[in-house]
């Protein structure tokens, strides 16, 4: 540690005011604070509403992302080896998964930090740790087969258009990771949805599986045609409620295990990063909407309507989205009642889109972005209502 400290101390003069690399001070500062606690800590929060230090804030999110990350690596490798007929012991599977997921994460961080550094140097603002979270959240929402250059394009769009042009962390109004994902979702739909993108086939195909269906639970649910039968056709395809809950199935890298997302959500709530109101609101929204749809379901209607609402919670990216994306404190509303409404609307919209919109099998991503748009409006209304109440009490 002493050696590293000495390196920084000896180089500092070049980066200070009037040093020869004065322009690159943000890079120096970011690298230094990566190793050492800075003398100066953020006085105000990442955005006006919170008093947590940005670094601590972001490290907690990263910590909470670890369970889905490691399970995602394992599961990606497992699914890949399963269909390629390769051995399924832990180390083979994990290293396989690592070889698929690690490049994605490296690309996401490298490209993301390139933009962050560029903006920091030109616009002379400090490099923010927000990217550590965005750069990790983003690859976890991607299917494992995504080409690396598309991931690079996505994170570029998310970081530049979703965040940097608004002035950096805390000033954006959409979740940057989801903005990037939505961009590549619309730009390269063939690589972002469908049945073949969720599993990496090894080129060394040894034996066994000639045909396999890579369909996700949501895809299976939306093609089921008989009334009241989605649960049955799901379990025929190997997706029982417990598989879906524990997460050993196909899907985007980080989203499959609802259980681990639940643990992540717990961590975030306990350390005060995520608002439990948004999470509970979202779960209630999904359950109530799902339940109401059950009530109007008849023999003649779409089979989707009759699905047990609890299945909605464990299918697709709902758990991941509501735990890590919807609770992003920058793009969520800051007022307390508004958070309930916001979470509830995300849950309800997700279910409505899954059931009624044939264009997308999944609705979490766009529901969260959609409600991000209305978060400032919800805040505005709640402030107005509270002000009115205050005057009445005087």
């Amino acid at each position: 540690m002493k050696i590293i400290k000495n390196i920084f101390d000896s180089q500092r003069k070049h980066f200070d005011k009037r040093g020869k690399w004065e322009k690159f001070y943000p890079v120096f500062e970011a690298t230094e604070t990566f190793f050492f606690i800075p003398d100066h800590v953020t006085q105000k929060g990442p955005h006006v509403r919170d008093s947590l230090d940005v670094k601590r804030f972001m490290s907690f999110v990263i910590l909470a992302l670890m369970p889905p990350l490691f399970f995602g690596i394992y599961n990606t490798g497992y699914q890949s080896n399963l269909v390629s007929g390769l051995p399924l012991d832990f180390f083979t599977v994990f290293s396989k998964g690592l070889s698929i997921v690690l490049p994605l994460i490296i690309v996401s961080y490298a490209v993301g930090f390139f933009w962050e550094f560029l903006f920091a140097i030109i616009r002379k603002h400090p490099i923010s740790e927000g990217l550590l979270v965005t750069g990790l959240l983003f690859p976890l929402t991607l299917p494992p087969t995504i080409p690396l250059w598309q991931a690079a394009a996505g994170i570029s769009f998310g970081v530049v258009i979703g965040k940097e042009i608004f002035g950096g962390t805390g000033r954006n109004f959409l979740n940057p990771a989801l903005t990037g994902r939505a961009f590549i979702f619309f730009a390269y739909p063939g690589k972002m949805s469908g049945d073949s993108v969720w599993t990496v086939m090894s080129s060394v195909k040894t034996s066994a599986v000639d045909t396999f269906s890579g369909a996700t639970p949501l895809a299976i649910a939306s093609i089921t045609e008989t009334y009241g039968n989605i649960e049955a056709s799901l379990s025929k395809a190997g997706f029982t409620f417990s598989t879906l809950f524990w997460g050993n199935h196909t899907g985007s890298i980080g989203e499959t295990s609802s259980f681990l997302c639940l643990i992540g959500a717990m961590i975030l709530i306990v350390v005060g990063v995520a608002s439990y109101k948004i999470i509970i609101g979202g779960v209630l929204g999904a359950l109530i909407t799902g339940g109401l749809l059950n009530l109007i379901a008849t023999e003649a209607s779409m089979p989707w309507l009759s699905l047990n609402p609890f299945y909605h919670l464990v299918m697709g990216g709902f758990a991941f989205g509501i735990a890590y994306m919807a609770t992003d404190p920058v793009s969520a509303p800051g007022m307390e009642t508004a958070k309930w409404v916001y979470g509830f609307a995300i849950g309800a919209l997700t279910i409505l889109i899954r059931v009624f919109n044939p264009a997308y099998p999944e609705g979490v991503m766009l529901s969260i972005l959609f409600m991000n748009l209305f978060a400032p409006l919800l805040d505005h209304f709640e402030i107005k209502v509270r002000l009115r109440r205050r005057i009445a009490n005087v």
Partner: protein
Amino acid sequence: MENLLSIALNSVFVGNILLAYFLGMCSFLAVSKKMETATGLGFAVIFVLAITTPTNWIIYHYLLAPGALSWAGLPAADISFLKFIIFIAVIAAMVQIVEMVIDRFSPALYTALGVFLPLIAVNCAILGTSLFMVERNYTFTESLVFGISSGTGWMLAIVSMAAIRKKLRYADVPEGLEGFGITMIVTGLMAMSFMLFSGITL
């Protein structure tokens, strides 16, 4: 009834006149700076649409459409090529009335809206709604519902834009993008989020 509901939902969310068809952009960009003016203009647009769309329906179906003049003994006449100019004239007249009403009852809003109130007359959302009404063969009631809900969709967009711009006051936008530049980008991002509903057929 179900038909009317689906038209309403369709024009507020799925085919939002602003975020799906990009009509009415100029006043959307210019008046969304403040919440109060945005709300005021939103209501004004709803009101104008609620009057002009059915009025234009009547004019189109009893004067302009092919064969509409049969009541006057001219069954072969087709003057539907006049619809643009007539629709614009109706809209301009209606906007004049709305302007006088607002001036009378809410002078503050009148000054706040300034030049954008008469500019509703050339707001493409208004003319667009009338033309869509013709194109989609709506009945009279449908055209009324369509007008009101198109306006509601427009208002929803401008009000949420005003709220976002209020939040963006804390943003630090690069020099070249300040003002309209960033507003255009925000509009694009809003439209992307509204893609949530695209594909729903009601």
